[in-house]
């Protein structure tokens, strides 16, 4: 009998139309093809032409359809009618909402603009929101970088004029050894996965350094289960080994870094700064003449071993420091949690690949000194890291140590190493300095955030007290380049350094997973003064969904979802560039909202116009921009330079060019992005490559070429140390002098993370990791993703599991110096034996996110945040020290120390909070038709 089978149509209709825009479920910002059927979103896939993701998508991006149809979407502006935290709201019109906001903000601007604090969370429009805040005139603006990884960003920028984050990438095509420090997911989510896939497919080696062996560390060929907070020590031990064996790139150090700079040895206010000529150029000793010469002189051959009039080179200081037996692998092994033999082995492997397997590209280039080079030499060892290093109180110094390691082997901006993405490289001194001068009724005197060169750039008031509500750029954390979002609510509540009136928050779930010490923050938000008024009088919040934070605001400005609005991912803040191209992108409304919601940026332009903010109104006082789309196209920061670089002028210009009214259409036709490729001869050695510098000027990244040397030795840091030693007019308070002297070491140093002070009673390190399939709190409303991560166990290593006699199904009570939680546990063998961990932000508040109150996220899920505090436990000196990096103010999430005890299986995790009333209707029970219902 012949085989019969049904007749199948293997070419069914796929979609009516494909609309290309940009994903928003994380900061990676991949290009997406949105397939439309019957006017609705049918299916989302990656855009193959897109520079970021080249067609692939992650789990979140692929389930965007469940995000734009989530029942938790807010429906209209909300005015609070019950007490804060009750969740009782009344839906109001936009006109009423805008009137309320204007009535609150207009008088403040006239009298005391600093009483508005505007902080943004997962903001992808920072160049716009910061411009708005500057125009309003408040010094109190920042985005979320202070939570995140300012250590990584600032450590990178101060050391080498660029950072990891999404601002740089390993040379995936050439690298032979990739070393990953402490990354679970990162912002560059898809490129990292693509890169790891690429190098592993090629058979090259991936090394994972992480207390936890999951995700990227699971595929790592070699895993080093470091004890948290000790990477700096391990890196310095590797540097010790490399120096000992002379396995460093002397030529690179001499030519492209300040290693040959001469450190002033004379006692006094200049001690420890680098010698400069009368033009302010760093001096080196030229090997050919033996005489001092400016570093950028043509033909100069800087001498790393020079001693001139008693001043020794940076290189000698460095060698002296790191060759000390204090950094010998044997000495550090115990604290690092890795055997000396393995640390040495890793150092040897780095040396072998960097020097024995060096590569050479036949690509001539010319350096900034005017010398031509016939080839590009590559040291194919690449490194990457993020919050594993960053989110510790010694994170800035550790980040510097890591970059110095990369620099020592000559692997930054060389083939096979680490490459910057435009607009980087950009040295710290090409960035603005912070501004904080308030003039009622007028804009701020300049941009809020920046890179201080020394104490003179701190954001302090006349009386020396912090000018900003988050105390950024104060002596407590001088280089806090991204602000300190995690301190805003507690400082505002304490009225220190001063009281504020209105807190305007955008896209940050501050009443839940993005604060330390969640319960107390909730109390601060609801706390009333003796007058019966809330201590933080007014809170305006923009969210698109029914998050925990919504319940704690007085006025809610409901945003659209990412497929319903215009957006611009701009070269002015965090663009989508790749190492070989400058690129930016847009979002555009591929569907129209079916609710009374508006894009936040358009709302802010409207509000700005109502407040008459400069730049947002015409001379006659009418609004300058109809909406955000209008702004994206027509706004100019500098003549010819606007939010979008692509298709300027008549449509052919990139970077610089007149406003093009057709610009958005051109972006849409091009798949939602624009890219301009770096010329071949400019692909590597970018900070010193004349070809790159010229290209960067041509597209408006800089106004003139900006070649510079890497700062192995950091002079800005030394300037703060000098102040702490008593030099200069701006002096730190007495209690901070010792901390500054220690933390502002101009050569990378390691000190124990502050959490270690509690080690005796709380021996265990507790960490969180990003799940790849969830974005912070907001993936939970996605019915597909919440099936993957609907609850989170606390993972324990075998040693702790056995020691306490845990078995499957058990729960534990975990206690830190600040509180305790009771949670379910599970075993993980591939885990540092002093470390426990859980997935981040899975636990949810009952009543939020349009979930049933008995959702597993709320009954079995939990946050570690209840154990963390924005302040360190009292030390008995009468002061409360911040749980932050003393250099940048980076929140030290991962310094957490705990102890653990076994408890019987429970039904409910603790702490358990009362149900909040949902501002949106109950969700339908079942999802039967994908996006159609």
């Amino acid at each position, binding site marked *: 009998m012949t085989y019969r089978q049904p007749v199948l149509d293997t070419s069914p209709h796929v979609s009516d139309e494909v609309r290309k825009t940009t994903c928003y479920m994380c900061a990676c910002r991949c290009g997406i093809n949105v397939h439309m059927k019957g006017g609705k979103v049918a299916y989302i896939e990656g855009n193959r032409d897109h520079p970021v993701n080249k067609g692939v998508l992650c789990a979140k991006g692929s389930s965007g359809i469940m995000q734009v149809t989530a029942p938790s979407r807010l429906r209209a502006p909300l005015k609070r009618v019950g007490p804060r935290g009750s969740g009782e709201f009344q839906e109001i019109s936009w006109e009423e909402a805008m009137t309320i906001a204007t009535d609150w903000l207009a008088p403040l601007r006239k009298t005391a603009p600093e009483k508005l604090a505007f902080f943004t969370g997962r903001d992808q429009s920072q160049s716009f929101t910061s411009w708005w805040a500057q125009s309003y005139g408040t010094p109190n603006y920042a985005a979320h970088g202070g939570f995140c990884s300012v250590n990584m960003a600032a450590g990178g920028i101060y050391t080498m004029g660029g950072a990891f984050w999404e601002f740089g990438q390993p040379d995936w095509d050439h690298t032979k050894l990739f070393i990953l420090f402490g990354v679970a997911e990162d912002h560059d989510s898809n490129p990292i996965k693509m890169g790891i896939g690429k190098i592993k497919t090629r058979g090259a080696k991936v090394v994972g350094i992480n207390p936890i062996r*999951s995700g990227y560390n699971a595929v790592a060929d070699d895993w080093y289960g470091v004890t948290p907070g000790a990477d700096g020590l391990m890196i310095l031990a590797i540097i010790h080994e490399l120096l000992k064996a002379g396995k460093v790139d002397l030529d690179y150090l001499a030519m492209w870094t300040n290693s040959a700079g001469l450190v002033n040895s004379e006692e006094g206010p200049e001690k420890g700064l680098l010698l400069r000529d009368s033009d302010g150029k760093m001096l080196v000793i030229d090997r050919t003449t033996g005489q001092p010469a400016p570093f950028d002189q043509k033909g100069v051959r800087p001498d790393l071993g020079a001693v001139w009039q008693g001043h020794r080179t940076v290189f000698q200081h460095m060698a002296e420091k790191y060759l000390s037996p204090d950094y010998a692998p044997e000495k550090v092994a115990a604290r690092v949690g890795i055997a000396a033999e393995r640390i040495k082995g890793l150092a040897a492997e780095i040396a072998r690949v960097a020097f024995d397997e060096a590569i050479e590209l036949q690509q001539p280039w010319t350096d900034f000194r005017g010398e031509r080079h016939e080839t590009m030499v590559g040291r194919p060892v690449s490194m990457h890291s993020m919050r594993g290093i960053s989110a510790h109180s010694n994170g800035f110094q550790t980040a510097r140590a890591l970059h110095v390691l990369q620099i020592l082997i000559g692997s930054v901006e060389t083939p096979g190493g680490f490459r910057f993405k435009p607009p980087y490289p950009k040295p710290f001194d090409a960035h603005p300095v912070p501004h904080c001068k308030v003039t009622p009724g007028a804009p701020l005197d300049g941009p809020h955030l920046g890179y201080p060169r020394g104490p003179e750039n701190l954001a302090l008031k006349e009386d020396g007290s912090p000018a900003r509500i988050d105390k950024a750029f104060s002596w407590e954390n001088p280089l806090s380049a991204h602000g300190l979002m995690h301190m805003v609510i507690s400082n505002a509540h304490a009225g220190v350094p001063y009281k504020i009136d209105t807190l305007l928050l955008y896209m940050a779930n501050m009443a839940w997973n993005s604060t330390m010490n969640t319960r107390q923050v909730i109390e601060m938000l609801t706390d009333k003064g003796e007058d019966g008024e809330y201590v933080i009088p007014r809170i305006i919040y923009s969210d698109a969904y029914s998050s925990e934070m919504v319940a704690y605001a007085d006025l809610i400005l409901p945003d659209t979802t990412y497929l319903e609005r215009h957006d611009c991912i701009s070269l002015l803040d965090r663009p989508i560039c790749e190492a070989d191209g400058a690129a930016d992108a847009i979002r555009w409304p591929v569907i129209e909202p079916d609710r009374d919601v508006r894009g936040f940026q358009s709302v802010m332009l409207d509000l700005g116009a109502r407040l008459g903010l400069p730049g947002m109104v015409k001379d006659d006082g009418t609004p300058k921009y109809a909406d955000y789309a209008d702004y994206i196209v027509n706004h100019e920061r500098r003549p010819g330079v606007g939010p979008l670089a692509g298709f300027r002028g008549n449509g052919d210009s990139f970077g610089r060019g007149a406003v093009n009214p057709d610009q958005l259409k051109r972006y849409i036709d091009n798949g939602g992005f624009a890219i301009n490729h770096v010329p071949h001869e400019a692909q590597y050695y970018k900070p010193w490559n004349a070809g790159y510098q010229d290209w960067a000027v041509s597209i408006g990244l800089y106004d003139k070429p900006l070649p510079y040397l890497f700062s192995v030795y950091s002079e800005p840091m030394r300037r703060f140390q000098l102040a702490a030693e008593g030099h200069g007019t701006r002096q730190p308070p007495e209690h901070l002098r010792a901390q500054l002297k220690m933390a502002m070491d101009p050569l990378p140093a390691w000190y124990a993370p502050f959490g270690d002070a509690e080690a005796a009673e709380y021996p265990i390190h507790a960490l969180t990791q990003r799940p790849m399939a969830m974005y912070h709190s907001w993936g939970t409303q996605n019915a597909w993703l919440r*099936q*993957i*991560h*609907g609850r*989170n166990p606390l993972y324990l290593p075998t040693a702790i599991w056995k020691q306490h006699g845990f078995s499957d199904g058990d729960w534990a009570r975990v206690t830190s110096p600040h509180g305790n939680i009771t949670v379910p546990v599970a075993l*993980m*063998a591939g885990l540092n034996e002093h470390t426990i961990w859980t997935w981040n932000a899975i636990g949810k508040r009952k009543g939020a996110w349009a979930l049933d109150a008995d959702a*597993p996220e709320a009954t079995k899920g939990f946050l570690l945040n209840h154990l963390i505090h924005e302040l360190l436990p009292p030390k008995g000196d009468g002061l409360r020290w911040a749980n932050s990096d003393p250099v940048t103010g980076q929140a030290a999430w991962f310094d957490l120390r705990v102890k653990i005890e076994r408890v019987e299986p429970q039904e409910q995790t603790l702490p358990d909070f009362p149900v909040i009333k949902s501002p949106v209707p109950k969700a339908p029970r079942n999802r039967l038709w994908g996006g159609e219902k």
Partner: protein
Amino acid sequence: MHPAPSVIVFTVLSGLGFGFLAYLGLGLIAPTGLNAFLIYGLAYGFAVIGLAASTFHLGNPQRAWRAFTQWRTSWLSREGWTSVITLLVMAPVALMAIFVGFPSATLGYPGAAMALITVFCTSMIYAQLKTVPRWNHWTTPALFMAFALTGGAILSGMTDLAVALCVILAVLLVVGYALGDGRFVQRGSTMETATGLGRIGKVRLFEPPHTGTNYLMREMIHLVGRKHAARLRVISILFAAVLPALALLVLPASIATIGFAVALHLIGAFAARWLFFAEAEHVVGLYYGAR
């Protein structure tokens, strides 16, 4: 496997019904008239209720007729055919017994054969599954047949045969439980073979693919407590075989005694069948760390 009430009712009652029908077809009891109506009605009742129950777990019972199409390969399809044929073939037998006064041996013998084949087919639905090692064994058809024959014999009031079959059933149950416990290991599927990772070392589940449940876990991963299972095993043997035999031996032969013995037997049969499902481990559990 999940001990779904519908499949338990299906296999127990249809087994009992078809077992009873076999005795009727063979003419080992030959009721007539109203008696025949009641007795055949009882046999048909068990069989039909059982078959009907089997459709409760279908996602689309309205298409159940399609289950007849694949008799060449599918035991479920075969079971469909044989059960319908049995019921059809036995119908004239029953009608003759009721209205004519004697059953038809010409149709009765084939009917009896078909009834037993039906029970065999039912058992093969489970016994064929390599994925459930405990079932994938001769004890499965043996037990299904033994249950059908024992239940039928009790219903038929054939005390001696019933007692003898009770003994056989009890022995088979003991053997089935004993052999069943080792089947999974004998089959050789482990987390190491399931993942192919045994070449590296010992495998354990770190994270399941999702934190909630899914169809597979509900359907195929069911864990019974050891103590609970042991208790039920004893109950099943006692009630399915030992107590009915004792009842038949001790109590005076009567309809009431038969009814009592059948009731005891059914309790045991349900317990045994619940365990049959509940103790059966599907290899898919290996992917969920359930072993």
